[in-house]
């Protein structure tokens, strides 16, 4: 697309020319998300501020038959916001207002560009918070969370984004502005809000959301256990659940991650430990100590080397920082990494983790693990150097084998990052052509022209060939 393309001036008419980017250097910022191995340059990026502007942009895109893709903060990990065939990026960074906070009804109305953490910050003095807490919450947008149906460490007890969104305002792919759901828990008819959530930006552009706020728990108990082996730590996970305790969070880091985090931040973890578990209880203080003791006992039964208890809120924040800072330390391990994302039934964790170790050995590609163990949501971190072509090929094989292992264990190929462009090829591992045909039918209903975020989610003929199907 040329700079003097009439589309550009029409876009400038809608949002003002200072809110339109067309020069290649600036555009390159928008060529990828957090999954940096996938790149595609957009033709233009626009920054609207109202649903009406977005509606006008979408109508224009339709008129010119140009693809358009919404973008939140660009922290996605599956290439969801990539303009694979070029086109317009509709960046939502300027739509970042919290429109309404209604404490009495425990809900808030936000624009899509609001950063996840801002909402919790805005209501914490009232004693409330927004529960879905992706590890990227300091940067990612609520619109992006809705598109990906994001989770986080506390998903174990509180559920994913879909459990916390009551209503949406959406600019549909023909430019119409419609609301689904609302300020009440249920509305008659099909749950279109529910189908919209997790549709990875292919059903329209979310311009407003009514979300639930939760009362901050009275207390927390945060425990950190150091284990000799991953197996021991995995057994702890199933034992806790089997004893009828559902912690707020149950996170695991393996020896690779412990080492990287320790070298980068000096939290005082033993470098030779096999695994670290972070278990958090929250809720009413009365009775919590009893549960913490039960957990300590389970720790000890599984060869726990050392248990730490967060003494106070500062201590607790420190422990969480060590977990959330893990991503910042992988740069020490290898020039590049891919954060894999799969889910297995909790009881299959030990088996699948052993399988991943085998895969790592077989392809001589190091894999670190830091993940939401309580949910069985694994994040193998595949470490490599993208300048080495041979490694890249092996990494592709590694990804496929990991996801196959998850599917074969009765799980799924993504628990929170989405399919995007990254995992289209693997969809047939868990869905039959008939399952996918229904999804395609639903996509056609919402996005008949296919111009809204094309080239995502659905496998191609090549995908089947790759999988040997």
């Amino acid at each position, binding site marked *: 697309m040329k700079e003097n393309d009439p589309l550009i001036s029409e876009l400038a008419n809608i949002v003002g020319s200072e809110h339109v980017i067309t020069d290649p250097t600036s555009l390159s910022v928008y060529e990828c998300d957090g999954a940096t191995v996938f790149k595609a340059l957009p033709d233009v990026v626009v920054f609207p501020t109202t649903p009406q502007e977005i509606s006008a942009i979408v109508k224009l895109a339709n008129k010119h038959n140009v693809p358009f893709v919404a973008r939140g903060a660009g922290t996605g990990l599956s290439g969801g916001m990539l303009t694979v065939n070029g086109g317009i990026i509709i960046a939502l960074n300027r739509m970042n207002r919290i429109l309404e906070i*209604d404490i*009495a009804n*425990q809900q808030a109305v936000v624009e899509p560009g609001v950063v996840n953490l801002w909402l919790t910050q805005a209501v914490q003095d009232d004693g409330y918070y927004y529960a879905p807490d992706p590890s990227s919450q300091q940067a990612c947008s609520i619109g992006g969370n809705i598109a990906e149906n994001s*989770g986080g460490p506390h998903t174990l007890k509180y*559920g*994913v984004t*879909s*459990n916390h969104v009551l209503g949406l305002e959406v600019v549909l792919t023909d430019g119409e502005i*419609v*609301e689904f759901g609302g*300020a*009440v*828990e*249920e*509305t*008659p*008819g*099909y*749950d*279109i*809000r*529910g*189908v919209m959530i997790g*549709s990875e930006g292919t059903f329209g552009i979310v311009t407003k959301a009514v979300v639930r706020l939760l*009362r*901050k728990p*009275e207390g927390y108990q945060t425990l950190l256990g150091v284990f000799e082996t991953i197996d021991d730590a995995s057994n702890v996970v199933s034992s806790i659940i*089997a004893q*009828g305790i*559902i912690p707020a969070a149950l996170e695991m880091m393996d020896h690779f991650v412990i080492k990287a985090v320790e070298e980068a931040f000096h939290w005082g973890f033993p470098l030779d430990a096999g695994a670290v578990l972070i278990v958090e209880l929250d*809720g*009413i203080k*009365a*009775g919590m100590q009893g*549960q913490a003791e039960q957990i300590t006992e389970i720790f000890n039964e599984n060869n726990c080397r050392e248990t730490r208890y967060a003494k106070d809120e500062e201590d607790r924040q420190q422990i969480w920082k060590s977990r959330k800072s893990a991503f910042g330390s992988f740069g020490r391990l290898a020039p590049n990494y891919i954060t894999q994302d799969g*889910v297995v*039934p909790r*009881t299959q964790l030990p088996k699948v983790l052993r399988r991943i170790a085998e895969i790592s050995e077989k392809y001589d590609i190091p894999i670190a693990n830091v993940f939401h163990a309580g*949910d069985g949501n694994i994040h193998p971190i595949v470490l490599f150097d993208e300048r080495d072509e041979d490694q890249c090929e092996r990494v592709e094989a590694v990804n496929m084998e990991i996801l196959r292992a998850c599917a074969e264990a*009765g*799980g*799924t190929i993504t*628990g929170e990052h*989405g*399919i995007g462009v990254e*995992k289209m090829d693997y*969809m047939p591992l*868990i*869905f039959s052509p*008939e*399952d*996918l*045909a*229904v*999804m395609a039918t*639903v*996509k*056609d*209903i*919402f996005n008949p022209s296919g111009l809204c975020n094309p080239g995502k989610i659905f496998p191609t003929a090549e995908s089947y060939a790759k999988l040997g199907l």
Partner: protein
Amino acid sequence: MSNSNQLHENLVQIVDEAGLLPEDQLSRYAIDDINPQAVVLPRSTHEIQEVLSYAADSALSVIPAGGGTKLGVGNPPDKVDLVLSTSRLDQVLEYEPGDLTVTVEAGIRLAALQAKLAEHGQYLPLDPPYADRCTIGGITATNASGPSRFRYGSARDRVLGMRVVQSSGTVIKSGGKVVKNVAGYDLNKLYLGSFGTLGVITEVSLKLQPLPEIERTILLTFNDVSETVNVASEISGSQLLPTSLNLFVNGVPLTDSPEPCLLIGLDGPSETVEWQIDAVKTVAQQNGAIGVELYEGQRQQELQGAMCAFPQVGAGTPTVVCRANLRMTDVSGFINTALEANESAPWRMRATGLMGSGVVYLVFSEFSNGDVPVEHTAEAIANLREAATNVGGNLIVESAPTALKRQIDVWGSVGRSFELMKSIKTKLDPIGLLNIGRFVGGI
């Protein structure tokens, strides 16, 4: 041979005699006074496919059903050809307690499933009405819930995946069996609450919960509704974690107390529950409660059961049940409006408000001349619906005599999202086979 004999014979070839409800029992599945031509009870997905294909070829409509407890929800149908009940598909397919998930056939009854799960100290935290008879498929298709949705959510928050037979006979899967899954579109949400209009649900995977150590219910009685509501909001805005928080006016289940009251369900480790009991008592005493009673054991179970059964319709007694969905802060205003409007009406109106989730049930019964005065009740419902929509809520008529249903739209308007809903129905049930004309906007 008469048509009905022919139909009978054709269906027997698919499902055997045992798979057909005897003719003299068809009225059990009557929908708005219309007896179905046949009630089919297939034993396998394959049989379901055959029945659907037979129905499609013979231009018969099909109404999917589970235990039949919510079959009456919807606008009156033009005709009822086949009712297809999944109640004989009632097996637990996969249950690994350590995963805290279960996969079952759709026809398993909630009570039967709970009994199996209890052996392993777990349960499905859903407590919809008709708990003894309703099936998991039915709960899923209606997105059913009960008082404990305050803490544990509705079916929507519990269903991980399902298998569905489409009207074309194709079997598809949505979601999966693990607790987190964002692969592809979340089609579970389409089928949840679709009232059998999009497919026959044959299998459901669910997220479970460990059984609590103890359960208690506290009954607080007040002089007026506003005091009751104040205490409810005080509790829901506190750090207490009740499982249910129900307001009742004009009649509390199992007790004869005419005063408004609040039933508070608590569960968890005994230490936690005991602490909450004390906290609730303190709030109650500071806010004018005239009665505080604690229930446990058998009596607690009965009370909790009666609370869930509140919106149920007794056999043979004319009853109208409305359900409003509101914001929490609109519940008391709405209930007051309803009370005032129905004070001198020729019927008794009882109300319960699920304070934590904004659901209000209004139950009209004891009609003075023994029957429902259609025009009068239709007008009352229209007024209530307006009161609900004025504050951004909605009102659904869950149960009513057919004559009344013909005067109203049981669902109310769904606004501009209707066009999309209509395309969903036409694209996913293109031959128009399933539960036609009864859902929103005549879908």
